[in-house]
């Protein structure tokens, strides 16, 4: 019944619309509008151009400066983010200036030079000087923007500092996994054929590499504040993207092609909670490359700790091998001994395991 009413209403509205259309057309013919070169409607259009310009600019300023319920700027929490944001806003200034100026000219001229009986347009086919000037100005402005952007880009994408924390970020449908190098600070090798979801070897750690034995996995990505963090990024099945807006960080995770991104976080999670006034604030790692059905829910939490807390957390983690003794089957015979020590398989006090493998390493 309700649907029927809607259908009837739509039909009626269409019928009324059609009638109005016919009537105005006939009136137009009667008035002789079709004979005239330009009707009164021309003035109306010109006026609407100005109305649009004014209303549009008003809306633009209103919404850009606080007219929205929420701020659309994500608070920055990385060193390079400060730099990129600076140039983001400089670019914003330049482009907004050009945008506003050209829109004013476009609609302003449309209004000002609307058709008037007896007027003649100016025959003005070209002006070489003017054209050279307005080719040169954008060229120079753009050159400045590009060169500064390029400098930042080179810094961001340059080699990570020696002392960086190296962490592996691994994307798969539909989650992220994080692998830490363990006490030896060396990520072990990987091989996608070693992936073994049953024994929890999600990222294909290759246990024939000694450095892999003490690697541990994190469900959340912990990073220390103020230290360079070097993410080594891989993917298992399709392309994903490691994206975090607060850090102004993004890099695709590509199957078969390891990628990387390094950055320096500048605010701990606790500090961000205080700054945003949101006690539940978390840094969220976002998948930002279409990767299938649940792409929109693929995420992970990043925790930025004070360096001391980070060290403490780091040292408390257990090697994957320890949590999943079934993986021992993947360790070659000649490394079993070492594995027992570096993954601390006999002892529950993980600190001792760390100490052991450290001395192990320094002797190499």
């Amino acid at each position, binding site marked *: 019944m309700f649907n029927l009413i809607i259908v009837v209403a739509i039909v009626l509205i269409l019928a009324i619309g059609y009638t109005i259309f016919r009537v105005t*057309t006939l009136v*137009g013919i009667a008035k002789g509008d079709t004979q005239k070169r330009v009707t009164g409607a021309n003035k*109306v*259009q*010109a006026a609407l151009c100005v109305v*649009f310009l004014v209303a*549009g600019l008003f809306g633009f300023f209103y*919404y850009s400066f606080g007219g929205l319920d*929420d701020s*659309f700027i*994500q608070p920055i929490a990385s060193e390079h983010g400060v730099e990129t944001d600076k140039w983001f806003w400089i*670019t*914003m200034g330049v482009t907004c200036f*050009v*945008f506003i100026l*050209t829109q004013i000219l*476009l609609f302003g001229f449309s209004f000002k*030079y*609307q*058709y008037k009986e007896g*007027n003649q*347009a*100016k*025959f*003005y*086919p070209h002006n070489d000087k*003017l054209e050279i000037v307005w*080719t040169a100005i954008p060229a120079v402005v*753009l050159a400045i923007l*590009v060169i500064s*952007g*390029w400098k930042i*880009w080179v810094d*961001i*994408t340059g080699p990570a500092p020696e002392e960086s924390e190296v962490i592996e970020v691994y994307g798969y449908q539909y989650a992220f996994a994080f692998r830490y190098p363990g006490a030896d600070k060396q990520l072990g090798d990987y091989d*996608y054929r070693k992936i073994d979801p049953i024994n929890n070897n999600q990222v294909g750690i290759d246990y024939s590499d000694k450095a892999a034995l003490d690697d541990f996995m994190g469900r959340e990505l912990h990073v220390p504040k103020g230290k360079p963090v070097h993410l080594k990024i891989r993917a*298992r*099945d*399709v392309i994903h*993207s490691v994206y975090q*807006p607060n850090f102004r*960080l*993004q*890099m*695709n995770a*590509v*199957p*078969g*092609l390891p*990628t990387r991104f390094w950055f320096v976080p500048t605010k701990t999670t606790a500090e961000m909670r205080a700054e945003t006034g949101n006690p539940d604030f978390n840094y*969220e790692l976002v*998948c*930002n*490359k*279409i*990767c299938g*059905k649940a*792409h*929109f829910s693929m*995420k992970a939490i990043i925790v930025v700790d004070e360096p001391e807390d980070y060290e403490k957390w780091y040292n408390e983690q257990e090697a994957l091998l320890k949590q999943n003794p079934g993986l021992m089957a993947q360790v070659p015979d000649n490394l079993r001994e070492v594995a027992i020590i570096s993954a601390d398989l006999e002892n529950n006090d993980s600190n001792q395991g760390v100490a052991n493998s450290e001395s192990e390493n320094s002797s190499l």
Partner: protein
Amino acid sequence: MSVTDIQLQENTAHDDHHDDHHEQSFIEKYIFSTDHKTIAKQFLITGIFWAIIGGAFSVIFRLQLGFPDMTLEWLKPILGKWIDEGGKLDQEFYLALVTMHGTIMVFFVLTAGLSGTFSNFLIPLQIGARDMASGFMNMLSYWFFFLSSVIMFISLFLETGPAAGGWTIYPPLSALPQAIQGSAGGMTLWLVSMVFFIASTLLGGINYITTVINMRTEGMSFSRLPLTIWAFFITAVIGLLSFPVLFSAALLLVFDRSLGTSFYLSEIFIGGEALPNIGGSPILYQHLFWFLGHPEVYIVLLPALGITSEIISTNSRKPIFGYRAMIGSMLAIAFLSFIVWAHHMFVSGLNPFLGSIFMFLTLIIAVPSAVKAFNYITTLWKGNIVFTPAMLFSIGLVSFFISGGVTGIFLGNSALDINLHDTYFVVAHFHLVMGSASFFGLLAGVYHWFPKMFGRMMDEKLGYIHFWVTFVGVYLVFFPLHYIGIAGFPRRYYAFTNFDAFSAFTDLNTFVSVAAILTFGAQFIFIFNFFYSMFRGRKAPANPWRSNTLEWTTPRNPGHGNWPGAIPKVYRWPYDYSKPGAEEDFIPQHIPLSQTPESNLEEENELAKTEEVRESKNVEDSH
């Protein structure tokens, strides 16, 4: 093709006109027609059909984004099992809708619908030719497009749904049915469909290029070509050089999907097993795709800019400002469009050094684009502007071209792109600069050349309403997307509820959706106007816009061969509007300089002395 050939063909065209014209069967005349005007209309109608489908898809997923809690039960009669028991849109089908929307809009509406319609319609009419160089190939071009459309349409009804990996169909997602259902049969049909589409584009493009080079009427030198023709010509060249690369990308993908090769696949573990493929690179696909993909942006945009140049000049009653600069900037854009493709790949894992190179190249391309915008604005300056609906749509196009163009400066800067890539900022950018701008070019063209296509006028008032609702609507839909893009909202997301960071702006998203629905609805005003005017519109006068180009010298309903008598000769450029001293505010291209001594410039007076004015009669005798 040699000169004699062309003349022969002209002769046949003549004969056609005089003798066989009335004997053409319905099928020959309207279906398997080789007449460029009929083919143009076929492209246009097919394009309108696809635009409605593509637009309707965007409305469905905008409903999902704007009203996440709404039940879509009422769509069940159309979408069937893609609406689940709870009345929610299937998550994977959401991606399929986005993918099909993008594919349809970019390829079927704005490539075929825009170039196909106007290159076909205007090239012969504006350069003074009886038809395309090869009418048969031209017909084939349409029917390949038709076949491609049918295949894509069928893919919508597959059990596993149409392709769903985004219109860019990046592998491995598009290569592995295990990763997403749409990569099963839907993807196969997508690829097959695109192969026919590419064939269609190439057949059309070869024809446009040949026709422009070889078949211009006497006096129509390249420096007297209307900017529309320049734009179509350059577009065809770009298409000819870039579409084959898409073909190769698709072909390798077909091999990977069906023959077990590893061009794009390496070290993949999916569905509980490790695939044997090793050594391929997904990045290779991206390079190949964007080698077409970026030029494609200009393939859809340049024809729209050409149409705008013509319409703005005509309706400002002024010559286009900087005719040569306009051609120069189009050539520059065409060239540069081939060496900027990797700006879509800054965070793909591309070598950062390459990223730097492509950043520099990308920002160079902004310069000729800026020049074009300035030239349009200067053309309006001191004009005597007549606001036809076509003129309004052209002004709207320039407005979008600027608003969408400036955000390219952010995205082309690789350091800034890190945070903007694949967010709604990109969606806002390309919808304005390429989607809406080109779409407005298409609409402007229809309003402007409708009288020539169908011999009748479209209703102006409906045109005005259509323009204002659409123009304001487009801004209301796409401008707010910048804000949520800066806030980091990722594109191709079914919902934003899973992230704290993206839980804001629900009102804004609702607002955008409402605006999108209204804008989409307003297009039916156009559709009504279009079909109504086709049959019941006011009969068009010979030259309704008092325009200079040659198409307005043909009869109201030009037959096969376009001009009943000889093809007019051209004596001047197409932009002699409001020339000082002239009686009228326009002097068409076929008026000899020697007949307009009162308005000639000095060098034109010189030319007029040596000008050989051709009497139409003599010409006809001469062949």
